[in-house]
């Protein structure tokens, strides 16, 4: 409690506003201190680390199969993508050949996961912009359909632990293909509905256009990735530029924005969902019978010494696994390069000079997952 001295009586002071760690708009435990002059943000200091669980250290004590379950927990909205980075790193390091069917299923699941993650984003973003829960419930409805499918396949709605170094844990159910088509049908409907609810709405446009813009050069300098980077007009998509799985065999567009503002970040994601639907449809055509694990897979997987930085395009951007092995059945060092970690760094640049209400929208537009940031 600081009393006003007579000298300070008439000077307006910067109001410090604490947003988080327990605030309705911070998408998890994240704290940012806003310096506010009237309604305009003059300074932003983000504080992270509330969710730090030391996943990297834990993975050093776990063998490669156990580690998969932990990758889920570093990125709880795009678990398949996180698992994928990890198992790809292990496979490449150990030189394991993965059967074709397993790869295609992995691709389908990863793209479905991208859909579910982006649905989650549009919903949460709608709430940030101020739609009272409607966008949130609609997108959750669609996400739920996808999660139902995931549950039928893996047995869990969120922490799948389904990929294994070498392939998949077990075969997908028999009705997999029909179920995927059902899911795609509902996802298409969901995308359309989200489009008509938000994209053209004048108030939504007024809130998002020109807000939180970041230039392409700045975005690259900050190490941003994923849709947040592409919104600024940098066509960097690891699925195309640093291919993994069978992405070179499918046809899809890399969606980019122009202004790099909040609206572009939203719109890039929405359009990307349509591309994901396209990719999944093509994958379904390639899907054929076959094994899901290589024939000769040792019971306890060991890798030769060496290191690998395996990167994949997760819904939020580049999800990298830096795996250093000195031989043996567990990583010597495992570093998780999370997309949100880099994207969040740019928050200060994007927010300063905007209104308080915009700070919330900008934060929402980066689509942060604090679990991934803090690991």
């Amino acid at each position, binding site marked *: 409690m600081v009393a006003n001295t007579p000298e300070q009586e008439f000077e307006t002071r910067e*109001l410090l506003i604490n947003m988080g*760690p327990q605030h309705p708009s911070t998408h998890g435990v994240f704290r940012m201190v806003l310096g506010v002059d*009237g*309604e305009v943000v003059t300074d932003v200091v983000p504080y992270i680390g509330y969710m730090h669980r030391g996943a990297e250290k834990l993975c050093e004590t776990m063998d490669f199969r156990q580690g998969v379950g932990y990758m889920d927990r570093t990125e709880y909205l795009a678990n398949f993508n996180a698992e994928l980075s990890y198992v790809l790193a292990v496979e490449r390091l150990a030189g394991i050949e993965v059967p074709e069917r397993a790869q295609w299923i992995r691709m389908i699941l990863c793209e479905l996961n991208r859909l579910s993650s982006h649905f989650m984003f549009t919903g949460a973003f709608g709430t940030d912009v101020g739609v009272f829960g409607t966008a949130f419930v609609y997108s959750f409805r669609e996400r739920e359909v996808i999660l139902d499918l995931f549950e039928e396949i893996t047995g869990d709605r969120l922490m799948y632990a389904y990929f294994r170094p070498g392939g998949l844990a077990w075969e997908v159910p028999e009705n997999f293909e029909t179920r995927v088509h059902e899911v795609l049908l509902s996802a298409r409907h969901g995308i359309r509905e989200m489009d008509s609810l938000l994209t053209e709405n004048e108030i939504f446009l007024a809130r998002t256009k020109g807000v939180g813009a970041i230039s392409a050069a700045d975005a690259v300098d900050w190490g941003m990735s994923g849709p947040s980077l592409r919104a600024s007009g940098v066509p960097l998509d690891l699925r195309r530029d640093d291919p993994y799985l069978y992405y070179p065999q499918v046809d899809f567009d890399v969606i980019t924005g122009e202004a790099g503002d909040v609206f572009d970040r939203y719109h890039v994601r929405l359009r990307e969902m349509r591309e994901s639907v396209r990719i999944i449809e093509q994958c379904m055509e390639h899907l054929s019978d076959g094994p899901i694990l290589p024939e000769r897979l040792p019971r306890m997987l060991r890798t030769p010494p060496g290191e690998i930085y395996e990167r994949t395009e997760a819904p939020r951007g580049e999800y990298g696994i830096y795996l250093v092995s000195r031989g043996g059945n567990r990583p010597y060092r495992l570093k998780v390069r999370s997309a949100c970690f880099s994207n969040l760094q740019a928050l200060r640049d994007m927010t300063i000079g905007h209104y308080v209400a915009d700070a919330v929208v900008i934060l929402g537009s980066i689509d942060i997952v604090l679990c991934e940031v803090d690991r």
Partner: protein
Amino acid sequence: MGESLHSLFGDYLAVLLGTVIGFFLVFTALVATRVLAPFSPEREKGTTYECGMLPLRRASTNIGVRFYLYAILFVLFDVEAVFLFPWMLSFVELGAAAYYQMLLFILVLGAGLAYAWKKGALQWR
């Protein structure tokens, strides 16, 4: 006491009564909660909500001048609105002259608004 005054009093008397009743509604509710609700003061409960952090400093500091500008503008235009009420009830009887006089008044204020607009008083920074 004149008849008209009497009737006026009779009409607005309900307002006076309403104030008292409204006061008692709130008051009884607050008394009822004192009686019914548990009351166990703790230091932590008395702290200001600040997203789980301790307050950085007092909130009631001086606020940027932007908000006051709107207040001043409002006073100006509200006074005009007050003038409009008596005019509105009588201008048809008073004829075209009364209308144009008021129009002039509105135009002057409109010019004031345009000036404030141009000066950027309506621009939030």
